[in-house]
């Protein structure tokens, strides 16, 4: 529509207020998750048609208790609301509050209102008011807060249309401040701020002064004045504390007139559940049980769709081979692109299941109980109770796991968590483990149920956790970072998870993973294919050279072709590369072909299998359709005459992959999250060094 207008609405609120439920109600499925430039905080946006003429872009800002940020996530809220040149700067803010803890929610509301942005208050979970004996005098509250207040229930779809109606008329909203506490804190000081920075609202100036990081939209002239006030640090700290105290005074005065609660609360259930879930024995038993269920489902449930995906991609490759004309481009599609995409898609079931469990545990409120339960134990290893979530998520993929470490308040605890998460056995190691175990561990059963191969896989999982925990302990002892740790976590009410919210989270997060990691893996497989399919002079003249070196005359055509292909691979660009690192990896029991796989799987571990498949299929010109496993089994070590993948070299590879930092995506995310190359490089050198040593010991002892 030519005359349609577009406004921006920001949703802000405390965690656990049902803000995302409300967002889902307002936008339906018309949403997308992006990234904020420079950092990887999920940016959720959606569209809501307020009227035929007015379309609104909704931005779901991260949950926070205050506009003063204590984490990267919360910083987004501050930066969006304080900078009116920010592309997401809202025309109107909806502060989502929860009916039971209105007092604390109003703290954030008054801060935002004082910034002078049109702000409405949506009190969520209003359907529970009667049961909890809560009464709110809305008209009086509206007068006191100088804006519109609306009762909603995102889950029961109450009040949504009325909220839209208010948002439609956002221009009529009052933008006066409601809790101007400057007079109570120190009138003169704030007057000086007002005079020095006349273009900003006093509260905005105050926020700019109290935050450590400078904002880039500020003019140098203004920044100078801000820095002048900043230099009075001790005073500012004291004023910040006073601000909190006075803000609550104002809120209490308002709520006394408008809010009443008849205390026969239904906190019984909560107390009972807490007693069981955080019990000193049952608490841990229940947590262990939940972990087992999660792992079981990641492996058992996911294996069915994974097999299906695997065969579908094999069929797709066959189909394309039959349909497309032969040529270089077709080779690229069949040997590079299709296996490349297949290599990503195959992880979708596992990752989706893990995201689903994490979402359920968070929605129900159980996750914060786990944090409470585990904090003391994790602290012995220099981490926080909040490190449990990244460590568990790490079994799917280290990248979202490292991002989830963001809500750990202490930099030291967060850093240690980020550094050790990649040791946990992520799903990308599974294909590597699976194929190597199948090659070197006999398929024996003990007592009818214990399968030796399965036990080996389990042992590798424990090895991953053990490596994470012990390196955390080591880092805890040696890292010389001052620990200004503090730890606050809200233990929210238990809730029944909403299927809609969970499904949206799973879909969005899986999509982000597939497109994020997928791009890298796909690019690597294409590059790899090129490097393996082209080479120098020896590569081009392979046919002649093989002919002239021919040792026996009675080679069949197929055998000759095979020899040429092998010679070509050896002299392709990647062959040259692999050969050049061979001296370094020979003590581990590897040859140049495995060397190529090691190099390429630096992009992502699962590329190891795909690379060997590419290498052996490029080298295999015959009509032989042996599986990759058979090909690996038939590889011969020319020096010993024995198998290339025997017990010694196999164990060496397993250990290498258990420890090595073979993942560019993880390094990139660690760089972004720690804002320096120091930590990812330390991680790369430390982990890969450890991997080398363990692989070396294993091979030298076992050979």
């Amino acid at each position, binding site marked *: 529509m030519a005359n349609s207008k577009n406004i921006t609405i920001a949703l802000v609120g405390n965690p656990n207020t049902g803000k995302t439920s409300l967002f889902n109600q307002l936008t339906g499925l018309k949403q997308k998750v992006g990234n904020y430039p420079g950092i990887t905080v999920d940016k959720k946006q959606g569209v809501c048609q307020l009227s035929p003429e007015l379309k609104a872009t909704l931005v779901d800002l991260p949950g926070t*208790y*205050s506009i*003063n940020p*204590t984490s990267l996530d919360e910083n987004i809220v501050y930066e969006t609301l304080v900078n009116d040149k920010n592309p997401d700067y809202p025309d109107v803010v909806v502060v989502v509050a929860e009916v*039971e*803890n209105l*007092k*604390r929610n109003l*703290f954030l509301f008054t801060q935002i209102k004082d910034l002078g942005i049109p702000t409405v208050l949506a009190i969520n979970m209003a359907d529970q008011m009667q049961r909890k004996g809560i009464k709110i005098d809305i008209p009086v509250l509206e007068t006191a807060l100088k804006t519109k207040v609306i009762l909603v229930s995102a889950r029961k779809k109450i009040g949504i249309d009325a909220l839209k109606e208010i948002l439609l008329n956002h221009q009529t909203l009052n933008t006066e401040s409601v809790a101007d506490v400057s007079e109570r804190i120190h009138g003169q000081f704030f007057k000086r701020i007002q005079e020095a920075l006349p273009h900003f609202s006093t509260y905005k100036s105050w926020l700019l002064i109290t935050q450590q990081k400078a904002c880039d939209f500020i003019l140098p002239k203004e920044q100078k004045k801000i820095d002048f006030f900043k230099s009075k640090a001790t005073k500012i*700290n*004291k004023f*910040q*504390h006073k601000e*909190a*105290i006075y803000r*609550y005074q104002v809120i209490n005065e308002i709520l006394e007139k408008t809010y009443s609660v008849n205390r026969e609360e239904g906190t019984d259930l909560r*107390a009972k559940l*807490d*007693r069981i879930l*955080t*019990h*000193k024995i049952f*608490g*841990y038993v229940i947590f262990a049980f939940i972990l087992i269920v999660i792992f079981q489902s990641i492996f058992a449930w996911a294996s069915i769709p994974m097999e299906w995906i695997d065969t579908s991609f094999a069929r797709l490759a066959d189909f394309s081979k039959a349909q497309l004309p032969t040529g270089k481009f077709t080779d690229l599609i069949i040997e590079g692109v299709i296996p490349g995409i297949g290599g990503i898609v195959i992880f979708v079931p596992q990752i989706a299941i893990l995201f689903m469990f994490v979402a359920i545990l968070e929605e129900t409120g159980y996750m*914060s109980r786990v*944090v*409470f*339960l585990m*904090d*003391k*134990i994790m602290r012995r290893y220099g981490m926080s*109770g909040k490190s449990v979530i990244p460590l568990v998520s790490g079994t799917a993929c280290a990248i979202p796991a490292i991002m989830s470490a963001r809500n750990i*308040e202490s930099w030291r605890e967060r850093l240690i968590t980020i550094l050790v998460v990649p040791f946990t056995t992520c799903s990308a190691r599974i294909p590597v483990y699976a194929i190597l175990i199948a090659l070197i561990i006999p398929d024996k059963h003990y007592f009818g149920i214990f399968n030796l191969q399965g036990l080996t896989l389990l042992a590798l999982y424990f090895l991953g956790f053990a490596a994470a925990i012990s390196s955390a302990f080591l880092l805890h002892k040696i890292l010389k970072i001052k620990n200004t*740790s*503090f*730890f*606050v*976590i*809200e*233990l*929210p009410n238990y809730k029944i998870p909403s299927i809609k919210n969970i499904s949206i989270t799973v879909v969005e997060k899986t999509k982000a993973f597939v497109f994020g990691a997928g791009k890298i893996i796909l690019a690597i497989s294409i590059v790899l294919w090129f490097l393996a399919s082209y080479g120098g002079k020896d590569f081009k003249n392979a046919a002649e050279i093989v002919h002239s070196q021919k040792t026996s005359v009675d080679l069949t055509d197929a055998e000759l072709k095979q020899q040429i292909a092998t010679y070509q691979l050896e002299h392709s660009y990647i062959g040259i590369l692999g050969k050049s690192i061979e001296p370094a990896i020979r003590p581990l029991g590897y040859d140049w072909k495995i060397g190529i796989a090691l190099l390429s799987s630096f992009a992502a571990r699962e590329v190891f299998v795909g690379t060997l498949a590419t290498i052996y299929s490029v080298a295999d010109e015959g009509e032989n359709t042996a599986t990759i496993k058979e090909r690996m089994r038939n590889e011969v070590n020319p020096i010993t005459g024995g198998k290339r993948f025997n017990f010694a070299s196999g164990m060496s590879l397993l250990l290498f992959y258990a420890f090595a930092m073979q993942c560019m995506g993880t390094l990139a995310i660690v760089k972004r999250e720690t804002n320096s190359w120091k930590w990812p490089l330390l991680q790369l050198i430390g982990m890969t060094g450890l991997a080398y040593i363990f692989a070396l010991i294993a091979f030298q002892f076992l050979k």
Partner: protein
Amino acid sequence: MLITIAQLEVGEKGIICDIALDNIPLKLLEMGCLPGKEVELLQKAPLQDPLYIRVNGSHLAIREETASQIAISKI
């Protein structure tokens, strides 16, 4: 009698009278843990730390080191 939250027994309550502001995160104040508020120790984690408290209508878990910076008078 003046004690800190860390010295409460499970189920006991107190009124916050003084907070060592320099050692306490602003976030805790902003969540409503302020002088004059009633605080109840609901539970201790299995290893006696962190502490699970109710203050100003919020259910929070804080570590013992933080709790020992908040003085209360027992009721």
